[in-house]
């Protein structure tokens, strides 16, 4: 009887074991290799006029084209659907001439009407990218001159106009209209379908799992890596755990991953067959003070905190893969100037400023909000907590969900004393950064300081209307030094953009204007048998 019973037990154990799964080197479709990107963030909505974030825009860039495209480091605007363009004398009229051979995936030509419709759609939906242009461009003010020429008539001159156009993707109006439901401009359909002209077209769309795009063999602009080398497609696979991302990369189940911890990059770089992409980025980290309410309305207190922070600690938290800011503007922004005397850790100075403040002996507790789950922000909070102890200032670390944090920061009454934010300027034009300090931005997450300096406001307004670069550059230099003086935030550092990838992945092209994590999938290819 015992033997029999043990038999049952053994059988039930063996039941659980299946055959070993062999690790695949890389995925293939037919004889073409497929690039696998392992990312942590999902892509819920693909519609280019509704939503964007790094993962979404990476896919949008893959399946859609825009009039122009950012490429290279430093980022430059390259002609794309538009082969050339002109700006009128007064800076209010822009005319774009389209290439002849561009066509949508279904074969329709990309014509001026498609451009007009796409911009009108983006503005009318008033979602996603709309904010970039809606103050300057009315939906009805885009003219189709002829089938290959389109003209934009701005309300006021806007020097940064061109710098936003790479993010305005062009959809095929015929397809979108065919799939319109109750006048929704095809929003429902475009959520998980595409009507683009880009180098890839959608193949599989499994929300929360993976998104696969297939290379367009006869892409109108050709393939930079050559027809022979171009991949069969790209799979964007969602892998939420960094440990699993690493494992997938090591096993070759993913060819490139993003979002590992700083320590992971150091560790994984030592592995054979792994290459690290490490580039100075444009994303700034700062700790925004509420400059209008609470203790941090006191400029001397803000200065004291800024001088107490261990800036080298910031770099250490990133294992050195970061660069301290020397201005509120990131280095890659046009018109950036180095501001001398920007605060660095100096306890004597910190105490000096504290003594001048309304809290000469400290004895207060300040909240520090960060996005729940953002590791580095949490660690910087710990660092701050440690650094402010000598000033007898306590720090209350508050992890919070992003939407809730933004909601808090949208009103001056509820905006926390200190909030850590990462900001990636959407373009390389200085206005994209400077406008954060304009009262019109109040309510936005990057304006949680509720910074108010009328002189600065006036200069920002003046600079964005001027089309004379030299005049603008001078204004921006003044703006930068005034912001450092007013200390509406702890001006922190710019973290490097990093990806870990297999060394057989070629064609990686970095451009600082893209978001952290975002990669231009178009030139990638796999160089292996």
């Amino acid at each position, binding site marked *: 009887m015992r033997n029999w019973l043990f038999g049952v037990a053994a059988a039930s154990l063996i039941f659980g074991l299946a055959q070993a799964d062999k690790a695949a080197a890389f995925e293939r479709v037919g004889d073409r290799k497929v690039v696998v990107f392992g990312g942590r963030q999902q892509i819920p909505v693909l519609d280019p006029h509704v939503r964007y974030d790094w993962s979404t825009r990476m896919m949008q860039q893959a399946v859609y084209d825009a009039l122009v495209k950012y490429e290279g480091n430093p980022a430059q605007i390259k002609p794309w659907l538009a082969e050339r363009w002109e700006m009128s004398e007064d800076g209010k009229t822009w005319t774009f001439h389209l290439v002849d051979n561009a066509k949508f995936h279904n074969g329709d030509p990309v014509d001026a009407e498609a451009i007009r419709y796409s911009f009108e759609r983006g503005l009318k939906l008033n979602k996603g990218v709309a904010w970039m242009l809606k103050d300057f461009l009315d939906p009805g003010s885009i003219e189709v001159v002829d089938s290959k020429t389109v003209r934009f008539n701005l309300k006021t001159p806007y020097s940064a106009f061109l710098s936003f156009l790479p993010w305005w993707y062009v959809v095929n109006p015929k397809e979108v209209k065919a799939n319109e439901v109750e006048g929704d401009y095809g929003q429902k359909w475009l959520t998980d379908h595409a009507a683009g002209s880009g180098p890839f077209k959608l193949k599989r769309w499994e929300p929360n799992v993976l998104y696969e795009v297939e290379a367009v063999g006869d892409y109108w602009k050709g393939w930079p890596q050559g027809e022979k080398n171009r991949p069969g497609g790209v799979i964007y696979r969602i892998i939420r*755990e960094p440990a699993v991302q690493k494992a997938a990369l090591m096993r070759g189940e993913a060819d490139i991953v993003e979002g590992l*911890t700083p*320590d992971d990059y150091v560790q994984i770089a030592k592995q054979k067959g792994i290459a690290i992409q490490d580039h100075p980025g444009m994303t700034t980290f700062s700790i925004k003070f509420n400059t209008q309410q609470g203790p941090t309305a006191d400029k001397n207190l803000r200065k004291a905190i800024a001088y107490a922070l261990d800036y080298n*600690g910031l770099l250490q938290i990133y294992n050195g893969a970061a660069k301290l800011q020397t201005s509120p503007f990131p280095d890659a922004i046009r018109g950036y100037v180095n501001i001398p005397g920007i605060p660095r850790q100096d306890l004597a100075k910190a105490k000096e400023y504290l003594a001048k403040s309304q809290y000469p002996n400290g004895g207060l507790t300040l909240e520090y909000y960060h996005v729940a789950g953002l590791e580095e922000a949490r660690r910087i909070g710990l660092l701050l907590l440690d650094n402010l102890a000598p000033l007898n200032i306590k720090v209350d*670390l508050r*992890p919070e969900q992003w939407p809730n944090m933004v909601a808090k920061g949208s009103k001056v009454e509820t905006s926390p004393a200190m909030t850590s934010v990462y900001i990636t300027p959407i373009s390389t034009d200085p206005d994209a950064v400077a406008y954060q300090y304009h009262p019109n931005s109040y309510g936005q997450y990057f304006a949680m300081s509720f910074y108010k300096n009328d002189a600065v406001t006036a200069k920002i307004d003046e600079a964005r209307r001027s089309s004379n670069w030299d005049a603008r550059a001078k204004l921006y230099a003044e703006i930068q030094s005034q912001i450092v003086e007013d200390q509406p935030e702890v001006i922190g550092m710019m973290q490097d953009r990093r990806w870990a990838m297999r060394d057989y992945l070629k064609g990686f092209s970095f451009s600082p204007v893209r978001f952290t994590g975002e990669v231009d999938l178009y030139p990638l290819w796999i160089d292996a048998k």
Partner: protein
Amino acid sequence: MSSIDMPAVAPEIPGFRERHASTIRQWRLYAHLFAGSFSSMLGLGLVVLFLVLAIFGPVLAPYPEDTLGAVKLGQRLLGPSFAHPFGTDEMGADILSRVIVGARTSLWIGLVITGIGAAVGVPLGIIAGYKDGIVRAVIMRITDLFLSVPGLALALSIVAALGPGIMNCVIALSIVWWPGYVRLVQAKTLSVKEELYVESARALGARTPWILWHHILPNCMTPIVVKASMDMGMAILSAASLGFIGLGAKPPHPEWGAMISVARTYMPDWWWYSAFPGLAIFLTVLGFNLLGDGLRDILDPRSRGR
């Protein structure tokens, strides 16, 4: 007070041992049965160890400042060594110290959740068991509503709405914890209510609160004690689970679940970071479960083997 007549002391009161002979025998029997079970003793040992850590934690921790958020970036992510038996974390803090001090947080979590659960659930259960009609119907309907969906799923939505943080975790888990006690106590009350001595007490005109306090509650104590012991562990585990999802304790407060939530990104190269807090959760929950299991074995005569 002084006006109360003290009963005259009888000249020959039998000794304590004689008077309480049956009680003493009962307890000796419990002790004997308990000590005879390896797993129960293991549970007791683990729980005692946990309590010692919770009470004396800050004294025992080798680097107490590390539990308050000291930053020592020079010694980040060191492996286990003599100076740091459990290694150090990403801020250079000693993991052993944080695990030790984390015991107090966990004890607090377990006590509060179990305590609130019992404090709300037991009275409701007794009332639902003792009263008929609409009162019972209402209480049990609401209880069933809460029990119709797994607690963790419900707690998740509550914390998600309230926002992350240990306090919110505790609130959420307390909200989903009490119905279990209502069910347990209501069933027990229903059966005790029918017992002869309760019937006779009622016939003799005892008031309801008196009956509830003197007859019903003591009879419900055994299952409550067993459940509470198990729940201590499960509450700690649930809070750690929420911590893992990213809804747990806020830094620099050492809490095991939150530590793992951070540490999981450091797997597998810095295994010690997640291994030791994980082990601490595991052993604590194991301890309370073994203890509860052992208690049930000896307190519930039905399952007693001898």
